[in-house]
């Protein structure tokens, strides 16, 4: 009995081992096929643009996605080859970047400050390759790395002025995802825009969720939990705010949901989106979308790729401003009629003043260019 039992186990495990072994043989046996296809792409002399995401991935509805779309657009418009790799953890940065260099990328775009060290290391080790990094600048410029950064405060300033000029309750609000400079720069500009409106008009519009002097305010803690965005927004509504600007990627949808509920209950509320034109990218909230603070990352990536392809690469930072349309206030779309013509012309004037340098918008998080 005992022996037959053991035989059963043995047979079972042998079968398992045999199957696993066979699978391993099959895997190694077919090694030649991908080699042929990938070496074919390596021998092509075409220009290759590559991108490495941070742990948010290319579907983060934020800077990874915009940058990726920019590169994809360059693929179509400029006829270049594109190679992309997502990082799941911070541990993946270095192998991903190294793989991109090995894959023969002419320019590699890295997304976010977390990749700062890894990009620097690869750039130093491969001085003949070019790199561009989104939303991060180095203290000491590196010869073959072009930082792509944004003075978002300028456009957010317009949004603050717009909010202050449109509010019915005299209170507007904002909140962030995580307290990092690329988020707080929106909130700084927004608060300053409201302040500028108050000074100019002798009004007293209040901003909830951000104190520029103390550099502290409301943060949901991540860029994922939409229910928190909803909860924050409901709190702001309870405190009398009627316009909310969430600076938290997808969490902004929670804010949109809360505002839609308030609107259904008869309140006159509005939403200001960030990063992209929310009227197009978050169409669920079209009817409450006042405007958006846009960072044109896709365009910047495409421009940098084009420059590099044409042999005009420089390591001078690309700084997105109102002057070069790198940052913008989106059109008002459906809510156009609710913005008074006078306010519109004032916004145009402010935009011109900022672009000309007559009006200075400052934030602790502004790029030091």
């Amino acid at each position, binding site marked *: 009995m005992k022996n037959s039992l053991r035989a059963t*186990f043995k047979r079972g495990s042998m079968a398992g081992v045999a199957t696993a072994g066979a699978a391993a043989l099959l*895997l*190694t046996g077919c090694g030649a096929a991908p080699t042929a296809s990938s070496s074919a792409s390596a021998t092509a002399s075409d220009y290759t643009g590559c991108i490495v995401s941070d742990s948010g991935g290319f579907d983060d509805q934020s800077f990874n996605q915009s940058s990726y779309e920019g590169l994809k657009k360059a693929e179509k418009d400029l006829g270049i080859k594109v190679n992309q790799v*997502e990082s799941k953890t911070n541990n993946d940065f270095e192998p991903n970047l190294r793989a991109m260099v090995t894959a023969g990328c002419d320019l590699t775009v890295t997304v976010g400050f977390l990749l*700062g*060290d890894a990009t620097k290391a690869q750039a130093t080790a491969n001085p003949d390759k070019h790199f561009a990094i989104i939303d991060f600048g180095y203290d000491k410029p590196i010869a073959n790395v072009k930082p792509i950064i944004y003075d978002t405060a300028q456009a957010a300033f317009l949004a603050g002025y717009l909010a202050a000029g449109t509010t019915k309750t005299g209170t507007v609000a904002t909140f962030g995802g995580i307290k990092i400079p690329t988020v707080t720069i929106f909130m700084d500009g927004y608060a300053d825009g409201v302040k500028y409106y108050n000074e100019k008009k002798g009004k007293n519009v209040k901003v909830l969720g951000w104190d520029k002097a103390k550099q502290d305010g409301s943060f949901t803690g991540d860029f994922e939990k939409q229910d928190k965005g909803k909860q924050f927004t409901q709190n702001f509504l309870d405190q009398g705010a009627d316009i909310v600007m969430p600076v938290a990627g997808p969490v902004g949808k929670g804010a949109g949901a809360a505002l839609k509920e308030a609107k259904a209950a008869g309140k006159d509320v509005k939403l200001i989106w960030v990063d992209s034109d929310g009227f197009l990218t978050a169409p669920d909230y079209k009817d409450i979308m006042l405007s958006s603070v846009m960072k044109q990352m896709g365009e910047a990536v495409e421009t940098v790729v084009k420059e590099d392809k044409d042999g005009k690469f420089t390591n001078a930072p690309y700084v997105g401003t109102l002057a070069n349309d790198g940052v913008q206030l989106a059109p008002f779309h459906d809510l156009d009629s609710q913005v008074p013509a006078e306010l519109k012309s004032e916004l145009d004037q402010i935009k011109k003043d900022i672009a000309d340098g007559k009006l200075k918008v400052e934030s602790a998080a502004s790029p030091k260019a």
Partner: protein
Amino acid sequence: MTESRQPRHAAEPDPAETPATPAETPATPATPGNETPATQTQDAADAELQAADAATATSLDTAGGAMRPSAVPVSGQSGTVPGGPDSLMRKIFTGSGMVSVLAVLLALILGGLLIASTDKAVSTSAGYLFARPSDFFSAVWSAATRSYVALFQGAVFNPRGSGAAGQFAPLMETLTIATPLITAGLGVALAFRAGLFNIGAQGQIIMSGILAAWVGFALHLPVGLHLLLVLVAGVVGGALWAGLVGFLKARTGAHEVILTIMFNYIALYFLRYLLNTPAFQRPGETNPISPILDPNAVYPQILGSQYRLHLGFLLAIAATVFVWWVLNRSTIGFEFRAVGANPKAALTAGINVPRATILVMAIAGALAGMSGVAQVAGTEKVLTDGVAATYGFDAITVALLGRSTPWGTFAAGLLFGAFRAGAVQMQIQTGTPIDIVLVVQSLIVLFIAAPPLVRAVFGLNPRKKKATTSKKAATTGAAA
């Protein structure tokens, strides 16, 4: 198999011997709960202890007030009640090695089908499936194999690498990624052997990472001493964080699953808070990223600078040996296993259960702490809020796949390291999303948790096994 148990039985420390022998016969009805046939690999002591439990449990009832009051609320303990939820957990964690292998295989097959289903050539050829089925099947086959070959090339051996160094670079990368998985997995496995389901490896890695990184970038010490201090800080950080869970469990009976989950959150938000303070930021910057660790504070790269493989891997091997020794050769390890098998019985047998609970959690935390050090001093060299990645949770899977044995965990850690390393190459070469590896990992867990499913798929008749299990139990009794 039964023969192999005997010598180990003899090698066990004394305490179990005396109560175990008379208890053999009454134990027989309790063992059918242990239906997974290959649980024999689980060492003999557990069966012995269960037998002892049955005996002591009966004596407890008759003992009346003679027994000293339990310091641990008995209801809060995970005793092995046959058929209870904990015994199910135990079965999942200590299932057979064959089920592990088959689960991996099955998960890979399903993953392959998933890859194929998203492949363009496959969907095109599916359009004329009935006209020319060979196209469809060859497309499925090539989509899956292409991805897995890339996975293999990214994890073990890349024939296109420059020279032997380049060709084996993927293997070194696998070992590097496996390092934190192995040590954190050992922490989870060890705690499980003491009956504690430690989900807190994530928080323990974070706390150790914080301490290790701070020592690494804030202090400036000579070569050797600095790294040693980083290691000690990290290990102590993890040990304290987990030891606190053990303490709360031992003193208040709070369940370790709840505690460790909550402690994970506390650790993560504490880390985020710290990264927003100037003390943890680079001078002149406000990004939540710490300064780079001193060159003296990082692990040396043991095979030269072209590989990321660092000293932490050797320490992971040492940790595996250490855990093996603790579990199988030390008195305290015997106590851990006794508490894991049945805390009530262990208490009656004179084992200090609260002490064992605290100690095993502290050691588990120290092991997870080694992962934290491997992260900040080994690969990343900075502290960010992604310092623990998902290693703390992957560690649970690793321990599960390794059946909570030290070398099993080691092997499972290597496998998962290979998956992670290969996934990068797979993504670059074939465009297969990196998430497919997460799917395969999750499928592995699913199949390990459902051994009958795996056996059914591979045509191993479960009914036959059940019958033989009780026979086995009978022979065990006879042999003793």
